[in-house]
């Protein structure tokens, strides 16, 4: 499993974007993995078991922590995510020291699935990451990752809407102001992603 060479080469550019992007530090890195690796990873992650997660805040399908998966490509991906290479890369982009292995899950959102507004701040999460592996989404499909500004510590206006694109990685800083949500999927497309948090 390999990161696209272009991604590593442009670390300083991602760092600049991460700092300047609003409403809180975030960056979108397109074509994160080498394409054939992303395709193999997608095909394998789809074979995992997903269960419906439902609460007041969300309704979508999720796997258990992929660190317990015994599938070849998933293991390779997790080795990559938790490798010195990726930690060094992320520390360079975010200026955050990464201390331990990332929690990693896969999620599937189908029509009517959603995740309402929250800040992700649990335990000592520092950076959230999402690698999209499903269909490409546009406004008519819904399913955007929506980032909100804050006003006196409460979520306010929508500043950014990120529509999932295959093999795009989104990273953002987790804080008590990192208000975000996943807009309801309103088409028959599948919003497949692998994501988690670095500590």
């Amino acid at each position: 499993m390999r990161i696209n060479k272009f991604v590593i080469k442009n670390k300083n550019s991602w760092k600049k974007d991460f700092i300047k992007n609003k409403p809180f530090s975030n960056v979108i890195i397109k074509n994160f993995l080498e394409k054939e690796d992303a395709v193999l990873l997608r095909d394998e992650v789809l074979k995992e078991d997903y269960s419906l997660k439902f609460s007041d805040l969300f309704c979508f399908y999720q796997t258990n922590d992929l660190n317990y998966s015994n599938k070849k490509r998933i293991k390779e991906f997790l080795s990559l995510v938790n490798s010195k290479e990726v930690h060094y890369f992320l520390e360079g982009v975010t200026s955050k020291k990464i201390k331990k292995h990332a929690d990693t899950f896969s999620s599937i959102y189908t029509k009517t699935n959603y995740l309402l507004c929250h800040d992700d701040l649990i335990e000592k999460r520092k950076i959230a990451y999402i690698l999209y592996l499903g269909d490409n989404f546009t406004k008519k499909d819904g399913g955007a990752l929506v980032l909100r500004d804050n006003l006196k510590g409460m979520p306010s206006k929508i500043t950014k809407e990120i529509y999932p694109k295959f093999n795009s990685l989104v990273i953002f800083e987790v804080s008590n102001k990192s208000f975000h949500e996943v807009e309801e999927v309103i088409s028959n497309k599948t919003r497949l992603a692998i994501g988690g948090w670095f500590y």
Partner: protein
Amino acid sequence: MISKIYLDNKIIKEIKNSYNNNSNQIALYEFFEKYFLGSLKLKLKKSKRKRGYIPNLYSYNLINNLYIKRFFNNTEFVRMLEKIIDRKIKNIGIEIKEFSWKDYTLLNDKIKKKKETCFYLFINEDSWKKEFGGNLFFKSKKNSFVLSPRENTLYLVDKQKEYLDFVQYVNCLAKGKKIILIKGSLN
């Protein structure tokens, strides 16, 4: 106004027994006479709405209608409830919320939990389906139960202190449709 069946003392006695034997919960179907339900709907339709939206707490329209608030404090209605819950009611605090696509409420730890007896009345179209969302969930650490929007049904619930409630997100399948939830707190 109230269906005659619910004004019959024998039936009220049976309802009271069911309420007591079912953890102090009961659903009274076809609660209002059809003509009255129609006029209630019309009054609600004409009422002013105020948008309530704090993304990490709730999204709905708040309806303020003095007539409806007064109506739910009328003697006939209050007496009927008193007979079921077997205690005096000083007044009923009324809260009216309208939910449509993308509306919801979230559990909020900052709300002080309290034991209260409430009624919940959904005003919606017959075509409303469970899968549209808008179901009212009650959650405690150990238990949960749900009230689904059902036209002209009055739910009476003795809510224990440990319960918090939320209205499930209304999804795109409900596009163009609305539900109104009237909550009455029996003080």
